[in-house]
């Protein structure tokens, strides 16, 4: 395999560069996916039928905790990539583990939150509003769940194989994915929760 050593490890192989660009294009598709979910949510936002409205069920504290957890995890995964570029395997893995733990924390908060909604009579089948709300947030949550497993597998590979063009490439792409999920969450936080509670 031809390697270009003037670039960071994740960019060093031809396939690696293709993967990174491909993932960016995939992020473009994801923008549209969440764009569509937002379009549906905004359309159905005011249509709660006999069920509760957003203002009645949203609670600030769990949402704020989720936001902080995810923001921090986005920061730490950035640090992990930075450590990877410094070839510091131990630091990279530490930051990676912190990221995954924060992600798991986010996910458990979200599960708590969903439980709370169902308890409040806002299950997914109650009204168009709850369907759109839980589907939009749920899609993000599903992405986070997938990300947790994916990140875990990459972590195992880094631990076993060290930094190779492949593991570095995968870690970098994972960081892109994780940052993107953070961006999506910021939009959910602003335009679903804060707008709903305004």
């Amino acid at each position, binding site marked *: 395999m031809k390697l270009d050593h003037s670039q960071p490890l994740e960019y060093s192989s031809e396939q690696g560069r293709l993967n990174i660009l*491909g993932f960016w294009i995939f992020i473009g*598709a994801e923008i*549209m996916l969440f764009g569509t979910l937002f379009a549906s949510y905004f359309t159905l936002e005011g249509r709660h039928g006999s069920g509760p409205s957003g203002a009645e069920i949203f609670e600030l504290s769990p949402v704020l905790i989720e936001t902080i957890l995810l923001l921090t995890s986005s920061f730490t995964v950035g640090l992990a990539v930075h450590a990877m570029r410094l070839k510091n395997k131990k630091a990279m893995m530490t930051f990676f583990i912190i990221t995954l733990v924060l992600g798991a924390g986010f996910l458990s908060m979200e599960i708590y939150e969903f439980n709370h909604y169902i308890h409040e009579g806002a299950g997914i089948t109650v009204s168009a509003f709850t369907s759109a709300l839980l589907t939009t947030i749920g899609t993000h949550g599903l992405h986070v769940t997938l990300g947790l497993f994916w990140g875990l597998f990459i972590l195992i590979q880094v631990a076993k194989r060290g930094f190779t063009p492949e593991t570095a490439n995968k870690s970098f792409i994972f960081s892109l994915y994780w940052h993107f999920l953070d961006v999506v969450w910021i939009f959910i936080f602003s335009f679903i929760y804060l707008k709903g509670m305004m």
Partner: protein
Amino acid sequence: MEFFERFAIPHPSPIIYASMVAIGITLLAIVAGLTFFKKWGYLWREWLTTVDHKRIGIMYLISALLMLFRGGVDALMMRAQLATPDAQLLDSQHYNEIFTTHGVVMIIFMAMAFIIALMNFVVPLQIGARDVAFPRLNALSFWLYFMGAMLFNLSFVIGGSPSSGWTSYFPLAGNEFSPSVGTNYYMIAIQIAGIGTLITGINFIVTILKMRAPGMKLMKMPMFTWSALITNLIITFAFPVLTVALAMGTMDRLFGTQFFTTGNGGMDMLWANLFWVWGHPEVYILVLPAFGVYSEIISTFARRNLYGYKSMVASMVIISVLSFVVWVHHFFTMGQGAMVNSIFSITTMAIAVPTGIKIFNWLFTLYKGSIRFTVPMMYSLGFLPIFTIGGVTGVMLGMSAADYQYHNTMFLVAHFHLVIIPGVVFAMLAGLTYWWPKMFGFMLNERIGKWAFWFISIGTCVAFFPMFISGLDGQARRMYTYSESTGFGFWNMLSFAGAVMLAIGFIIIVYNIYYSTRYASRDIGSDPWDARSLEWATSTPVPEYNFAEVPQVNSSEAFWDSKYNGHKLFSGKLKEIHMPNNSGVPFIMSSLFFVLGFSFIFSIWIGVAIALLGIVACLVHRSFEQDHGYHIPVEEIEKTESELRGGK
């Protein structure tokens, strides 16, 4: 509904029983044949596990042709039923299923597959690449599409087909009005195929952006490659919308959510909206590659460079943006008022401008040319006038006040068939004939091909022009019958005659393939058309590595320049070539998707769980796998090359 009742056909008829038997016998024959000739290993090694873009392209092609005939039979049955007033050939439910499956099969499983087939085969060759950027994802795309198509066609024999139109508007498509599993098939089969298409989109964008031969700047790409790039861009941004809409529809039907229901705030208009946010760009996904094909063919057979290359590219870029801002014109009659309709009316008509530029550029490409009337060229020349008529009626439909009268009528049906048939089907037949020698090493018979062309083009006019008239006279689309007093009878009989001509045309094409396979000369060289772009620079049949040496490019017609203007494509120095390994995972994973889809359709949750576990296992396997491909040494390349050269 009881568990087993769901598997039964709601409205069985002798035709369906006969097809069940026919499908069963065919399957048995295939299995027996493969076993008898000991071809299972060959099938697995060379096709099911292949990651070669050329073979994937050919598999797409075969599937597309099969689907063309499946959808074509639907069309014939519809036209036969409507040929006379008060006909009894089909009952209402059966007719509804047929026009639904006709639409879905033709758009999603025929046209999409056909354009992706050509892109797969041609694009890497045209840009001088060894394969696509992600060969294994490419295989996954194909198998997902294939499994989606098979799943959809299964509806014909198990559980019943969808019957709420290819647009599947809610609440008609909801549980209340469509209780059978038909619409589940629609939602899930298209979902699976759609994911495959989305992957193709990403794959080809990266391929075209990153894997071009040295010297091929963006503005030096052949026009088909440009059209493929723009198409895949639209695919990548349009298909997620479909994914979301279908997921919501599925949840409404299977899990009782309230997106498109009639109570608790559900909004049926949202489905129409999301469907067309995807659906309108989809039209351009289909038609842009066709534009690319025509650009290649017209310039080849006029023996001239393409006129206005830059404006061709610019118009496609403009179309890619405009295609996303016009979707509301599909439901001008939904009551959103004059202001909204005016906005979308203007954006809709604006698309006519870039499209018009392309038409004129093709016309001017003929100027001072030396026009040879080959079969691909005849399809391209037939496309221009018919498509112009289809296109200008599109502008008429874009005028929203008048659209109140055209909407949901045969006028609309005539319009989009006169756009899609010359715009996609002609292009695919032209492209098929044009690239056939590169794919299979012999040419299709020109004389028989011309017969097919005349039948198809005249058949198209005869089948669809009368619909303009019956539409303006008040015939709505999707009516399974009409009374004699309406006076629609004559026009529909004419349409039926056109449909029969079209059918004859396609049968002639099949005969042509058979005839040419048996009798055509295999000694045609690698450039039988005297063509202009890079795919003709490599030998025929194309070796697995495409080009022994990556070509040097100087213009959008590098091969032409190398033949006539002294450009040097190859230096003659060979290097070893890195190739990807075959893999069974895409096939296995897609088969699991098939199981997953089937289980979803019938709410068999155990099946869903097992298939999901299997899919996750495939993903985990992929995550940990270390596959670096293999290298073809220089000696082997030399040997292959000399065999290929010697064979001529």
